[in-house]
């Protein structure tokens, strides 16, 4: 009997050992699989993820699930929260909600909205597609109900017409528009009169903007990270740990900036950050990163071309995995690497910088999680461990009580 108990205990304990039962995943936790997560936001105590398969949301600590409403199936490219409204930009315009349940709109109807940015009660929306010619910027001061200019003519407003992939609107200073292949443009109002391209942006595929901890501006492109100390009038290369980095997403966090790369890595740091502004990697080995959002100190939601992850999360700050989160196998960061290729791959989309700064999200423990390298959700491991434990207990009980039909031990 002792041997049987030992076998059962060993099996149960072996499966429950760290590494086999990922109660606390060492790497980023997969929260939502099989979706291209293009935008992230915290609004009204909820987390939101805009994907190519609709809008998803989660209460902190709760599971990710499709959001109700007209965006259940849309291609959501951008999110922003001006004042008490959440705006969602998708292929057909902008929808607005104040409670996450009831939506109004669309406004900018028919326009492919690729990017959004907000400051105070003002929002900017950037439009365009990869075909070009329809890239414009609109401004709203009423929570997305109306936009200026009424009719966007890129050339008339000073824009080149290429897709506006990134926007930066600040409480003070000119607005910035990052274009797909034509550099950075500036406007004092964000409602027209754009000038550019700004000097110094040698690689003009601009994906993202952020304000660094020292107040300077950062622009991510597909070959370099740029920095401006004159409100975006001119730019120069900024240090970054990778050579020719493809920065696909930038977002503010407390005292630093978080950057996501096309090569599937996430860094924190930047000018003015602790440690002399050095960048340090907080996650790697992910699919191409399309959006990032700091949700708590050292914890980040990471939207990728193949799923939503939570990096640095030892709690449920980023929500729990969606039902069947691991049903689709996440695509690895790199594939088909030729011998001389640099270890990199990824993809762009109409990616907006994360619209909200560090969110104040309550933190609760998460019991099990799923590592990106794991093919099954954590609860499966837990069930396996439970079954094995029960098998051991049953074996011990059998030995102690005897098989059916056999008189209990001790009976006369």
């Amino acid at each position, binding site marked *: *009997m002792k*041997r*049987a108990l030992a076998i*059962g205990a060993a*099996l149960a304990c072996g*499966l429950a050992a760290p590494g086999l039962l990922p109660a606390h995943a060492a790497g980023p936790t997969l929260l939502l699989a*099989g*979706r*291209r997560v293009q935008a992230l936001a915290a609004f009204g105590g909820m987390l939101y993820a805009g994907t*190519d*398969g*609709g809008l998803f949301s989660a209460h902190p600590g709760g599971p990710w699930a499709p959001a109700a409403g007209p965006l259940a199936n849309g*291609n959501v490219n951008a999110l922003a929260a001006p004042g008490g409204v959440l705006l969602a930009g998708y*292929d057909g315009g902008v929808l607005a909600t104040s409670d996450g349940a009831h939506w109004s709109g669309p406004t900018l109807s028919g326009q492919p909205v690729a990017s959004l940015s907000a400051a105070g009660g003002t929002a900017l929306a950037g439009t365009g597609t*990869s*075909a*070009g010619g329809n890239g414009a910027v609109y401004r709203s001061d009423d929570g997305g109900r109306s936009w200026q200019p009424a009719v966007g003519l890129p050339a008339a407003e000073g824009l080149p017409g290429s897709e506006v992939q990134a926007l930066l609107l600040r409480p003070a200073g000119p607005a910035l528009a990052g274009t*797909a292949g034509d550099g950075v443009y500036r406007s004092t109002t964000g409602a027209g009169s754009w000038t550019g391209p700004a000097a110094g942006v*040698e*690689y*003009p*595929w601009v994906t993202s903007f952020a304000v660094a901890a020292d107040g300077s501006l950062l622009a991510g492109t*597909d*070959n370099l990270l740029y920095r401006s100390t004159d409100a975006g009038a001119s730019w120069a290369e900024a240090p970054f740990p990778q050579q*020719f980095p*493809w920065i696909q997403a930038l977002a503010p966090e407390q005292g630093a900036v978080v950057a996501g790369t*096309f090569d599937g890595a996430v860094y924190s740091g930047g000018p003015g950050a602790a440690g002399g502004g050095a960048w340090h990697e907080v996650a790697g080995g992910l*699919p*191409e990163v399309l959006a990032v959002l700091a949700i708590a100190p050292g914890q980040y939601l990471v939207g990728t*071309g*193949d799923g939503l992850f939570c990096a640095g999360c030892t709690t449920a700050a980023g929500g729990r995995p969606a039902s069947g989160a691991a*049903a*689709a*196998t996440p*695509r690895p960061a790199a*594939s*088909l690497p*030729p011998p*001389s*290729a*640099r270890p*990199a*791959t*990824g*993809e*762009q989309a109409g990616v907006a910088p994360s619209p909200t700064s560090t969110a104040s999200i309550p933190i609760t423990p998460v019991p099990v999680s799923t590592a990106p390298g794991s*093919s*099954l959700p954590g609860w*499966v*491991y837990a*069930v396996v461990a439970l*079954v*094995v434990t029960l*098998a*051991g207990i*049953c*074996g011990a009980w*059998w*030995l102690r009580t005897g*098989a059916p039909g056999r008189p209990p031990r001790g009976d006369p």
Partner: protein
Amino acid sequence: MRLRPRTVAGIAGIVALVGGVPATAASQAGKPQPQYALLCGVSQGPMGTRGSGPNTHFSMTAQGGKNSSPDGEYDVKTQPNKGDCDSQQNSGGNFTWAVGHAVVRPNEQGTEHANATGTSMVISGTYAVTFNGRINEYDFGAGGDPGSFTDASGTRTVYYDSFGPFNTEGGAQVGNHFRGNYRTEYYQFSDSDDVAGHDLVSDNDRDESCPVGGMNYCFEAILSGQIN
């Protein structure tokens, strides 16, 4: 036969262990199956090259027909290999692979952004297909060294090699989202039986479409992914 209780307990543990070990996800029902595509076409190379500084900005387009395999593009059952296009016939222009914006650094590497169109490119035929990736070798124009980059086929003069992820813009909500990786090559090609670019044996037409030293370039794209 009556099993000893100790044996039963051991078997129960082992069955529980074997039945529950999540060795792979392959046994899961509903796991997306691998999907492959082999696209063979012809391109005239980069157009609208601009910028004479350290970077080259360009665009280019390739057009061609689908794989002549009776399985068709998205039903290729096995992973295509580089060089597979060299035994294919061009069957007309039903796909376009267009690089709209790209940058190459002096080290002949860079980035590319564009999309693919063609009714046979996506199962539903309704979703745009985008690709954004890394250029691994660029040998067009002055300063290039075509032929320095070799691949497994061994018979191509390669001018351009790129790779990256591949996605349809939409379709995820209806299970028609194709996601995976791509790799492209622009090259020139001649059979051993060719004379001055003419295919004397007529074993295929790609070597006449893009002979070494000509104005056109063969295009090959290999897509590997899954639909969900």
